C-alpha cells in the first residue's frame, strides 16, 4: 500500500492537549462511575506542549483534507469534526455521541482511524486527513461501500460512513481477516438500527474484493 507522505510540518499552532484528555480530567458529572480510574488516566496524559498560546479568538489554520490544503479560520476549541462539517461542508462524518464512543465521526488521520470529535482542528494540521468523501468518485463506489450496499449493512445510515472508514482502514492493514478479527476491528463503532449481520458479511466480502485491486 502506498501511504501518502505526511505534508511538511511548519511551526504551526498546537493546542497542547487532547480533547479526550480534557474530558477525562474534568471527570463525568456523576463522579460515581469509576472516577478514580479516569483521573489517573488523565494524569498520564502528556503535559501541554510548550507551543505558543492560541486563541481564544479564531486563528488561521490549514488542514490537509483528502489531498488538498484547506485554509480555515477557526477558534482553537473547534474540533476536527466541526471543522469538517461546519466549515468545509464535508458532512459524511456525523456528530452522534461527541465524546469518542460511537465512531460515527471516524476519519483517517495520518494513516490511523480517529474519532474526529476527539481531535481539535488545530491539532490536525500537518497530517493527512481522509474523509469518506474521498473514497468514491461519482457512481463508482469503494469496494467497502459497494459491499455495504449489497449486504444491506445499513438502515438509517447515520453510523454507516464511520463504519465504512473504520472498515477501510482495518482492511488496508488486515487484508486477510477472520470474522473474529473483523468484529474486533470494528468494535470502536456503534450502530443503533442493528445492521451488524450485513456488516460482517460486507466487510468479509470487501476484503476479498480489495485484494490485489486498486485501493482508494
Amino acid at each position, binding site marked *: 500500500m502506498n501511504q501518502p507522505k505526511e505534508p511538511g510540518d511548519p511551526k504551526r499552532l498546537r493546542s497542547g492537549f487532547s480533547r479526550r484528555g480534557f474530558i477525562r480530567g474534568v471527570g*463525568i*458529572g*456523576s463522579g*460515581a*462511575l469509576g472516577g478514580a480510574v479516569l483521573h489517573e488516566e488523565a494524569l498520564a496524559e502528556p503535559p501541554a506542549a510548550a507551543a505558543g498560546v492560541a486563541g481564544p479568538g479564531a486563528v488561521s489554520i490549514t488542514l490537509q483534507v483528502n489531498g488538498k490544503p484547506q485554509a480555515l479560520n477557526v*477558534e482553537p*476549541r*473547534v474540533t476536527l469534526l466541526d471543522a469538517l*462539517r*461546519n466549515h468545509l*461542508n464535508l*458532512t*459524511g*462524518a*456525523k*456528530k*452522534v*455521541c*461527541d*465524546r469518542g*464512543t*460511537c465512531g*460515527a465521526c471516524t476519519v483517517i488521520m495520518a494513516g490511523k482511524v480517529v474519532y474526529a470529535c476527539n481531535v481539535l482542528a488545530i491539532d490536525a494540521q500537518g497530517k493527512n486527513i481522509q*474523509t*469518506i*468523501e474521498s*473514497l468514491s468518485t461519482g*457512481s463508482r*463506489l*469503494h469496494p*467497502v*461501500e459497494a459491499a*455495504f*450496499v449489497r449486504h*444491506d*449493512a*445499513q*438502515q*438509517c*445510515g*447515520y*453510523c*454507516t*460512513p464511520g463504519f*465504512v472508514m473504520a472498515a477501510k482502514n482495518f482492511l488496508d492493514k488486515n487484508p486477510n481477516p477472520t470474522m473474529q478479527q*473483523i*468484529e474486533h476491528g470494528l*468494535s470502536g*463503532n*456503534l*450502530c*443503533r*438500527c*442493528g*445492521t*451488524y*449481520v*450485513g*456488516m*460482517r458479511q460486507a466487510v468479509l466480502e470487501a476484503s476479498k474484493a480489495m485484494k490485489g485491486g486498486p485501493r482508494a
Partner: protein
Amino acid sequence: MPDYSWPPKAKRKVMGRRMDRLDGPEKASGRAKYSSDVQRPGMLYAAILTSPHAHARVTSLDTAEAERSPGVTAVEVVSGPGTEIQWAGTEIVAVAAATEDQARDALRKIKVQYEVLPHFVKDEDLNKAGSRARAAGEQVTGDPDQAFKQADVVHEGYYGIPVITHCTLESHGGIMEWQGDQVAHWASTQALTGIRSDISTSLKVPVGNVTVHQDHMGGGFGSKFAADRWGVAAAQLSKKSGGRPVRVFLDRATELQIGGVRPSAYAKVRLAARKDGTILGWESQSWASGGVGGGGRPPIPYVYTNIPNQRQTHQAVSINAQGARAWRAPNHQQACYITQAAMDDLAAKLNMDPLELFKKNADVTARAAVYRQQLDKAAELIEWKKRWHPRGQSGPGTVKRGLGLAVHTWGGAGHASQCRCNIHADGSVEVELASQDIGTGTRTIIAQTAAETLGLPVGAIKVKIGDTAFPPSGTSGGSTTVGGVSSSTRKATMNALAKLFESVADSIGAPAEQLEAVEGRIQVKGAPAKGLAWKAACQKLGVKTITEMGENNPKQPGGLNTGGVGGAQIADVSVDTETGLVTINKIVAVQDCGLIINPKTAESQCYGGMIMAGVCGALFEERVMDEQTGRVLNADMEFYKLAGIGDIGQLVVHLNMEPEHDQRGVVGLGEPPSIATITAIANAVTNAIGVRVTNVPLTPARVLAALEGRTA
C-alpha cells in the same frame, strides 16, 4: 373501478425480488444529506439551557448578559419564572448565535434561580412510591380464585424490565426558517405530514404556509413524531432573528434525558396450571412508569390473552423523568417478558419442556396454528430436540449453555396514504408521496411497487418523497408504512396506466381494457407483438402529462394490506458463571409478515429488531436514575450501552412466505421481530444457569447475584 389487487406471486417480476436499497450508495458513500447535514444560507445555531433539577420551580431568570454575548441574535425563554419543572433536562432557555460554540457560551451567561422541590425518580420499588402510584383498577375475567384452588401447580414470580431510551444516532432536532408568514422546516422525523400540522398548530401558522423537507433521517424508533419544544423554540428564534434559519439538534446528554424513553414494567405474577401444562389462571400485580405521567400499561397476559381466569391490578408510577414516547412495539417487549418469563418458569416447575407448554396453550392465543408451526420451525432451526436440556442441567464446567423461547404478535396494517403518479411524454415516471424513509427501505419498496404495476425496471421510476409538496402520507409508526405506501402507489400507478392505455389505444388499434404493460411495452393481452415500446407509447401524450392519484384508506384496504402477525424466536446463550457474562451464540426468528415486497430489507428489519430491541435490551440497555440528584446517571453513550458488532452472535431469520401468508397482502414488519428476543434470551439464560435473573438487562452483576441468591 379497476382491480387493484396484487398480481399473483408467480407473475410478479419486481415485487418479491431481493433488491439493494435505492439510497444505499448515497448513504454508504457519505453523500446522503440528512437534515442535520443541511447548511442553509445565513444559518444560525441554537443551544438550549436545561434544568439541572428533577423537580423545581423557576423563580427568576436573567438573560440580559446572554443577549449581549458575541454572535447571539436571539434568546427565547421556554420555561419562564413560575414554571414548575418536572424532570432534569427540561428546556429553560434557547439561544441562537452565529456558531454553536457562541450559542453555548451565551448559555453560561444566563442566570436562573430555582426553588428546588422534592423529587422521586426510582420506579422499581412500589413500596416507596406512596402517593406517586396511581391504581388503574382491578380487572377480573372468569373465576381466578376457583382456578387457583383447582390448580395442580401454582407458580409465583417477579419480573422487571427498565426504562430505556431511543438513543437515535441522529439526534432530535432540525432547521427552522420562519420568514414572514412562511415556515420551512428541515426535519428529522417519522411523520413528515404529521409534523407539518404540528408546526402549524404550535406556531399558529396556516398549514399551507408550512413546508417540511427531509431526504434522510438518522433513526427515530417511535420518538420522532412531533415538532417538540426545541423545534418550536428554534422557530421562534428564527422569527426573532429576522427569518434566518436556525439549526437545533440536541446534544447527546440532552437527547438521552429528553429525547424519548420506553416505559418500564414490573410485575408479580401467579400462574395456575394443571399437571399436563394447561394454564388455568393468571394473576398479576403490575406497575410501570413512563415518566411524570405514569403510563405504560403492558398488555398482559401477552399473546396468551385468553387464559380463562384472570385477575389483574396495575399501578401507574409517576417519576420525575421525561415522559414516555412510543418505542418500537410500544409496551410489547415488557408484556412479552412478564408473561413468557413466567410461563417459562411454570414449565420448569412442572418439569416440562417449555416448547411443549407454549404449544399446548396456543389455543388461548389469537392464532394457534401459526404459533405451533412457528415454534416447530424455530425449534428445527436451532435443533431444540437435540440440544435442549432441563433447566440448570447444562453439565459440568463454569460456562453454562441454554436455550430459551418466546412468541409475539403485532398489528401492522397500512396507514392512510395518498400517492401521485406522473407519466411524462418522454417516458419518465414519478411517484410522489409526502412520506419518509426512516431507514426501513420505504423508497425502494415504493419503486418496486410502481415498477411492477407499470411493467418497467425499477430504475425507470423516480420516487419522490420527503417533501410536503407531495400528497400527504401517514406517520411511520407501528409498522404501518409499507402497507400504506405500497397500496397507494399501486392504485396511483394503476390509475395512471389506465389513462396511458386510453391515450394509446387508437394507435395500437385495440381497446384500452385489452392492453397490458409488460417488460417495458404496452401491448395487447394475448398478442404481445401488437403494441408499442413504453417510450413510444408515452410520446403519444404529446404535450400532456398523465397525473393520477391513488389512496390507501385504512378502513377499506381492499385486500392490498392487512394487519396481525405472529412470530417465534429461540435464543441459544452461554453464561460464564464466574464472571456473569452472557454471550449470544445464536438466535433464530420465524416471522409471519404477509406479502413481502423486498425480502432483503424485510430480513434487515428482523435482524435490526433482534439486535436493537433484543440483544441491546436483554443485555445492555438501562437508563439509570440517581436518587440523590434526580438526574440520569448515564446520559452518554459510554455508559448508556448499546450492543457492538461482536455482541450479537449468529442470527437466523426465517420469513413465512407460504401462499397463505402471501395472500393476506402487505403487512408491516418494523415492530414484530423486535418483541420476543429479550424474553427468549432471558429464558435461555435461566435455562443455562438454573435460576431466574428477575430483571433485565442481564448484566454480569445481576447474573452473579442471581447465582448467589441475592438481589443485584
